[in-house]
């Protein structure tokens, strides 16, 4: 990796995006990068917005916050326009859902929840689907390390279903990238 990744994941409490951020962070560590992961905490977050952050870089990371992310994923909102201004120049914005609009280059719509619902048949796996999507679109970590990190993070009884979710997400992510 020869790049600094600043990733921001936005969702609602309970969607598991913190888990996704930790998996991403662990995968990136496995690939030899310096990584910091953090999240907004708060009782207010219960049911409200929840945000998680990952920074990965081959240089040392001190200041742990993200000002302009180059990867953003938004789980519970479809009005992508309000997120664009916060995105870095070279950024990628991943939205959960469908749209008919013509989109700016950096914006990707992927029906993450629907995939979890309809294809994995387990709505709860939407976060792991989103992990696949991020890896598929950004390539910030390899499929292999992402999968390993995911496996280490989920309870063994839920492993198979999550593998499926990851694979479907990855596929959808790659497809979205190719469709650009």
């Amino acid at each position, binding site marked *: 990796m020869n790049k600094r990744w600043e990733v921001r994941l936005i969702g609602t409490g309970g969607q598991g995006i913190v888990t996704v951020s*930790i998996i991403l*962070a*662990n995968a990136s*560590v496995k690939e030899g*990068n*310096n*990584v*910091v*992961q*953090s*999240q*907004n*905490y*708060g*009782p207010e977050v219960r049911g409200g917005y929840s945000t998680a952050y990952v920074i990965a870089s081959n240089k040392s*990371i*001190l*200041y*742990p*916050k993200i*000002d302009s992310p180059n990867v953003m994923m938004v789980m519970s909102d479809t009005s992508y326009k309000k997120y664009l201004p916060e995105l870095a120049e070279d950024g990628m914005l991943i939205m959960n859902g469908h749209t008919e609009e013509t989109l700016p280059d950096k914006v990707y719509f992927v029906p993450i929840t629907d995939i979890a619902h309809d294809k994995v048949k387990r709505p709860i796996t939407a976060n792991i689907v989103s992990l696949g999507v991020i890896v598929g679109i950004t390539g910030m970590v390899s499929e292999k390390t992402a999968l390993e990190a995911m496996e280490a993070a989920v309870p063994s009884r839920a492993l198979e279903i999550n593998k499926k979710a990851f694979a479907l997400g990855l596929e959808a992510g790659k497809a979205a990238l190719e469709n650009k």
Partner: protein
Amino acid sequence: MGEVKLLQGNEACVFGALAAGVRFFAGYPITPSTEIANIFARELPKIGGKFMQMEDEIASIGAVIGASCTGMKAITATSGPGFSLMQENIGFAAEAEIPCVIINVMRFGPSTGLPTHPSQADFMQSRWGTHGDHPVIVIAPYTAREAYRETGRAVNFSEKYRVPVIILMDEILGHLRERVEFKEEDIVKEVNRKGPEAGVPFFPYEHTDDWIPPFANFGSGYRCHITGLIHDRTGFPTNNPEIVDQVMRRMNGKIDKHIDEICRISTVDVEDAEIVIVAFGSVARSAAEVVRIMRSMGKKIGLIRPVTLWPFPDREIKKAAEGKKAIIVPEMNLGQMVREVIRTIEGETPVHPLNRIDGELITPRDIIDFIEEME
């Protein structure tokens, strides 16, 4: 060693403590320190150690001190409200000279404040929170790796100097996960309290050469008396002014006597700097970034980062400040450490506080703007 991990600041404290031989944790959950309790609850029974959830923070520090009386290394973790409640018993540990470690993961105060937001506003409290003159050591790590190592150092200091040691972190570091690669210098060597010497008459509060009396663990056959009343070298109460003077000066002075070992500061590019930032904890991460950025712009900026906050590194700060154009002290509070810097520097260099008091980390941008405006 050479081990690489994604470690949360809170988690790192736990493993540092375990490496230093801690086998007892008593605590009461509080944001943003709860992970520490959670992880101790999981880890301690695995190695035969014991985890207790007490009825409150007063009970927690009390149980920790009790466990320490038997020779078991003991620790607790809390945040502002709990830290305030622990003050009376921290004073007891200081007076009775019982080793113990308290981790305070600072959140925004006062009172309930903003429980999930960071702050550095317990800087003064960590030194002066309990009544009466008392010794204390306070250490502020700034990365997960340092949290590991410094918690180990804290445990060792508490044992060696028979003093409560406080680890002062902030919510950001407590909750931050980061890659840690453990190196040789991170190995925590266990230090154990000095015991009674065979053949020598034993006084539990002896004024020894190093000013640290030996400690006889409960059950080890010495049957000492331990009290929070002022006591003479035998451990029994006295109010003889001469003796009171001696014991108070020894007890408080033992830390100063070993200040060289206890104080640790870390510096970046201070030597030739014109402007020096003095910062600790997470703010020092932003400050280090500023040095990197501004040096690359050709500006002569340096950073002094006190790792040991108390005793305050007077000498080092004073020396580093000599001949500088300005000192900047950014803090996530209304200006606490800056008071110490001003006191220390005694007018030699202009000192500028930079404070954020909105629940957010001071950013490199904040500091750069401040410097540019100042110039």
